[in-house]
């Protein structure tokens, strides 16, 4: 079988990037983001990107890198509070922004990967989120329809991956990554540790290799946004 394993982030994105592309990038805050692939996407020079990601990184890190270079035309997110350059571009009308409730965003991505073009939810009923969306009553309650989301390329960060693309995620760094892996026409993954096939117990694989087209091993900085600790009492 032709190998899914690539050496560098740049090689792993070769031939996949283009102006106007839709990209999904995993992560919650800076936790579980595909740092190296995001940097490689910046270096690819692709313009007018629509980026689907729960957050928009911080200034100079994560998706913040692509905001700095003005490569992002539109963000689809649930929360974008941590980024001054984002705010500046948005207030200047240089950046489109589509807010989704976090659960709606997660479910839309899952739906996109699962062949579900639309589903109904109670989230957002009676709010601005419902504006212009079809509604339906079920058991006398009103629900709004949300649509499935797909991407040209999904950038995913996993903990360990094998050469067939089977993945395991670590703790809360899992977040949006597994769904995004299913919703990309092409899914590219960076892992802390690349292992041989057969290293995982098949009962505990979070993302089966079918969803992964390319994989690299790469070191992550793993920046912490809110370092919060307690002191030892002794």
């Amino acid at each position: 079988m032709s190998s899914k394993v690539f050496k560098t982030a740049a090689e792993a994105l070769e031939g996949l990037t283009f102006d106007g592309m839709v990209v999904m990038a995993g992560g919650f805050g800076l936790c579980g983001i595909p740092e190296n692939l995001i940097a490689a996407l910046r270096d690819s020079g692709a313009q007018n990107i629509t980026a689907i990601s729960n957050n928009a990184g911080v200034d100079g890190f994560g998706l913040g890198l692509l905001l700095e270079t003005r490569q992002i035309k539109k963000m689809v997110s649930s929360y974008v509070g941590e980024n001054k350059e984002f705010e500046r571009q948005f207030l200047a009308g240089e950046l489109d922004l589509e807010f989704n409730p976090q659960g709606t965003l997660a479910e839309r991505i899952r739906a996109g990967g699962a062949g579900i073009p639309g589903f109904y939810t109670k989230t957002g009923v009676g709010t601005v989120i419902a504006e212009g969306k079809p509604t339906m009553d079920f058991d006398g309650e009103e629900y709004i329809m949300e649509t499935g989301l797909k991407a040209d390329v999904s950038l995913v960060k996993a903990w360990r991956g094998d050469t067939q693309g089977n993945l395991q995620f670590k703790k809360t760094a899992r977040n949006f990554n597994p769904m995004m892996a299913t919703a990309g026409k092409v899914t590219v993954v960076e892992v802390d540790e690349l292992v041989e096939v057969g290293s995982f117990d098949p009962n505990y694989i979070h993302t089966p290799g079918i969803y992964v087209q390319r994989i690299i091993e790469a070191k992550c900085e793993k920046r912490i946004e809110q370092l919060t600790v307690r002191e030892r009492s002794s």
Partner: protein
Amino acid sequence: MTKDTGWSRDDMAKRAARELKDGFYVNLGIGIPTLVANHIPDGVDVTLQSENGMLGMGPFPYPDEVDADLINAGKQTITELRRSSYFNSADSFAMIRGGHIDISILGAMEISQGGDIANWMIPGKMVKGMGGAMDLVAGVKRCVAVMDHTNRAGASKFLPKCTLPLTGRNCIDMVITDLGVFSRGERETRFRVTEWAPGVEMEEGKAKTEADWVWG
């Protein structure tokens, strides 16, 4: 910042904690709700959910335990417990939206007498996004809002109708403010004041509340 009458932020968190029952699965918002974890009554064992994908959230780590791959929904570093489990964001919100979380305690900017809540945006100011707030109020079985009774100008935040864009419609079951507790049994009924904070009199409550509510 002690006050002569009414509850402090910590008092409000303590009062909210009394809504937690043994065996509950609980989601706490940021701000005052976070303090609730410090006041869980003895003999009450609850499991905290963090909507970024964890059940069984533990305390903040000791400095040598910090793990960048383990944070809560406020992006703070945390720890795991023996009972903990991790899952992806779709599964996490399926849990929330499917009605499996027993109670959500969350902050608010405004609450209406019909149980609407506004807590995510102020028109004209930079909007950061609703995060998981709309999912929580739409999905969790019981939603308790904790907020100051009035804004800095002294105007009531418990209103006949919210003036700010809504986070959710008819989804709040109890409002805890620095003045007291307002609750309702069913989402079709009116809120009743069930408790005043120490030193708060009916007169003050009435004067500072624009929403309709019923005594006792």
